């Protein structure tokens, strides 16, 4: 049987093509690779049919426990994705194209990205957005680097209520640069303003705050931002986009840059990626932004069209002087986000946020009735909250798996001294019945 490799060449084709080239064999085309440099090994299995590979991977997918009722969030959420999102983004005219370098044959992509940029600006309340970054963590890193270039300073103050994952990434990326980091402790659910103001000075390039923070707590950072600006520093927000259907936007709090993880906007959890980093900023910062940006212009007949613009910021033009090294971004995930948002519409986005909030409040009530469980209420929350358990949370999570629940994220994994704390996320997908069963099962395992 012939093996599949998606090539169309018949023996006759190869013969004719070699003749046109003037080569006697395909091997001759590789003559520039000296024999001494040829592959010392290429010990791979024979190819398999589509049927065999599909069956094999179906079996592996069945080994993953996706049947658990999910209350794990921690920055990455189990939201519903309308079928129309998949139907649209699975059009091959979208997913088998590449970066729209040639605008005349890429208007579909360019307009979609322009619409995505608009949606991100609307959500965040800021002026300009780029076409996407890899994920929420790299978006924070890029924003931090922007602030360092813009201020000429090298001190970054960050909220320890910001995901540990993102703080760890920031440390890795800057490990060979001279950047001073200060982490502000969380007190009663929020970043301590007292501590923050103590460290804020005229050497500070930026203050990075997350809202809602890792514990699900919501805050109004307007007062912090005002103070940050007095020192000539930039205020950077890391924000959960679904919450913006309801919560005060970074723009309303006067943040200079907003970043975030866009996974919750119609992108499957998919074991950690591909996801979507978004970034929006005040318009005066646009020339320091990383990544692709699409702009509107006109063609030679005066007709509206869209192009990649402000490209003198980018690596393919500026090379080592570019604002970032990013080339491929997450365009297809950005398309998911704008389609998702457009399907929901402006009232649907509010409703989704409201549903998440309401169900979470209900879950808080349900869990607070369990003896030995203390729901932390020092701060209002959006769709995630913290409970203190009478025993180690990781042990409880383990026991709850048998009951059919991924019941939350044990905070001791990221925060020392919080071994008995559990972080519980409730999205619009969770029903009242599931929440009540969660409470019953939790009571049973404690």
């Amino acid at each position: 049987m012939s093996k599949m490799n998606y090539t169309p060449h018949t023996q006759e084709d190869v013969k004719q093509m070699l003749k046109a080239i003037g080569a006697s064999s395909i091997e001759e085309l590789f003559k520039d690779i000296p024999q001494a440099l040829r592959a010392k090994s290429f010990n791979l299995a024979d190819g398999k049919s589509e049927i065999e590979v599909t069956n094999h991977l179906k079996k592996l997918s069945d080994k993953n426990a996706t049947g658990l009722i999910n209350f794990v969030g921690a920055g990455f959420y189990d939201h519903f994705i309308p079928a129309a999102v998949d139907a649209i983004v699975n059009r091959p005219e979208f997913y088998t194209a590449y970066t729209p370098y040639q605008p005349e044959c890429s208007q579909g992509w360019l307009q979609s990205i322009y619409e995505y940029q608009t949606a991100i600006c609307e959500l965040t309340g800021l002026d300009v957005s780029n076409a996407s970054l890899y994920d929420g963590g790299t978006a924070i890193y890029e924003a931090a680097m922007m602030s360092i270039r813009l201020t000429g300073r090298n001190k970054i103050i960050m909220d320890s209520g910001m995901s540990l994952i993102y703080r760890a990434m920031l440390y890795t990326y800057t490990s060979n640069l001279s950047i001073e980091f200060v982490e502000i402790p969380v007190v009663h659910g929020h970043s301590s303003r007292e501590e923050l103001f103590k460290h804020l000075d005229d050497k500070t390039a930026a203050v990075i705050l997350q809202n809602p923070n890792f514990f699900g707590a919501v805050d109004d950072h307007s007062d912090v931002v005002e103070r940050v600006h007095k020192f000539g520093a930039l205020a950077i927000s890391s924000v959960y986009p679904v919450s913006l259907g309801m919560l005060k936007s970074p723009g309303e709090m006067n943040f200079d840059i907003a970043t975030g993880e866009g996974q919750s906007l119609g992108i499957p959890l998919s074991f950690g990626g591909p996801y979507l980093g978004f970034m929006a900023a005040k318009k005066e910062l646009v020339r320091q932004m990383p990544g692709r940006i699409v702009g509107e212009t006109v063609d030679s007949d005066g007709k509206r069209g869209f192009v990649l613009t402000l490209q003198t910021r980018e690596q393919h033009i500026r090379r080592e002087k570019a604002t970032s090294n990013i080339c491929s971004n997450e365009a297809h995930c950005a398309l998911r986000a704008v389609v998702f948002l457009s399907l929901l519409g402006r009232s649907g986005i509010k409703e989704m946020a409201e549903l998440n909030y309401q169900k979470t409040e209900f879950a808080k009530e349900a869990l607070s009735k369990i003896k030995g469980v203390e729901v932390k209420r020092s701060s209002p929350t959006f769709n995630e909250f913290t409970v203190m358990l009478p025993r180690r949370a990781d042990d409880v999570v383990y026991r709850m798996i048998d009951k059919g629940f991924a019941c939350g994220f044990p905070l001791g994994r990221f925060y020392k001294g919080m071994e008995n704390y559990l972080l519980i996320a409730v999205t619009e997908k969770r029903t009242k019945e599931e929440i009540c069963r969660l409470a019953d099962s939790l009571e049973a395992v404690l």
Partner: protein
Amino acid sequence: MQLIYEKHKEGRRGFCFSKPDVPQAKPLDVKYCRSKDTNIASLSELDVVRHYTNLSRLNFSVDTNFYPLGSCTMKYNPKFTERIAAFEGFSQLHPLLPQLAGGGMLAQGSLEVLYEAEKLLAEITGMIAFTMQPLAGAHGELTGAMLIAAYHKDKGSRRKYIIVPDSSHGTNPASAAIAGYQVIVIPTGKDGYMDLEQYKKYLNSDVAAVMLTCPDTLGIFNPQIKEIADMAHEVGALMYYDGANLNALLGKARPGDLGFDVVHINLHKTFGTPHGGGGPGAGPVGVSEALVDFLPKPRVVRRSDATYALDYHYNKSIGYIAPFYGNFGVILKAYAYMLCLGKDGLIKTAELAVLNANYCQARLKDYYDLAFEKACMHECVFSAARQAKNGVHAIDIAKYLIDKGYHPPTVYFPLIVKEALMIEPTETESKETLDVFIETMIEIARLTEDDPIRVKQAPLNMPIKRLDETRAAREPNLRWKS
């Protein structure tokens, strides 16, 4: 076409949530709430579907058009890998599950995919180990540069420079710079190879690494690659392999055997995953023995009982570079592709990619000037300098090709070739497709002599004509406003 925001009508809905099944809670204090709604568009589901379906039809794509965009390897993306990535067992798995106590068992399928994909890439490239975490090629480069820095730091030296040739991708110097290095650029000699005299001049014990693409961006394999690597190693520098062009070498040569210490691979190029209009890609990074200890955390390991787990115990690791384990959905598609093609299929891929490029080069070299008179590998680079004398530039050729239904080759790159046209046909294109493309290129060469204005007017058959890019940059309009 109208913007989706211009089609908004209050009261329309494209999706409805379930009715709330919980009692109304006390509303959140208004001081935490936004004071005004967004201007996101509200439309019916059909409106949204029709809007984006019609937009999609304005794109050229691999499934609809020949797309010989050099350096991007726009090969056909098999459909079955899309279906596999959509299996709920893969697509709905929360990445934190294996980080819960006992949670490793909840994600055995996905952990096995990561582990096995890593093993395949290691054999294909001749490297010892891989991290699957980098989220794109350039992200792999940055990861690689950080690995290089960690290696030197561990040896107690702090080297300042990374060497790149002037033909390199723009991401190479950009990645080196943001990792904290200064960049030394080595010119390309008249023979199309990196100038060895200049290279030797700049190579010293302050150089941390040499970043090369192989075959290089001119589509040429440098037979002195091993000498270049040996010289770097003599001064203690490492060799970095930009895997953008790996498609040419599958089964023929391996970066590890050529002396490279750090390698990134663009899964979306060589291993057939879709480019998604500019991502998501994936840029796994492989290393030689000397750098294994520095790989990002966590790593996926296979235990003696044949289960898979996340391992965080690497003291010398550079740390965390991605939120989780990489662009899993992309890695999964590439893994399915590799399993399907297997050894012979991958070798054939390289052979036919090189055959197709040489065929284009052979049939076009009488009409366009070759950047360098050499046999090419997976892509061929011409200069439109001859055509430019008649006023027809690379950009004009590109626009005329669009009119004829072709996505243009990469133009004006590599930067060292005047009026560059970089053609990468890939192995999945048939002789018939190449023949009509070649005929079109020949037609353009003739028009350049007879009717250059005709070429310069293009495109005429597209929904829009040439766009005013200067205006876009001078008066940026980057979003719709109500």
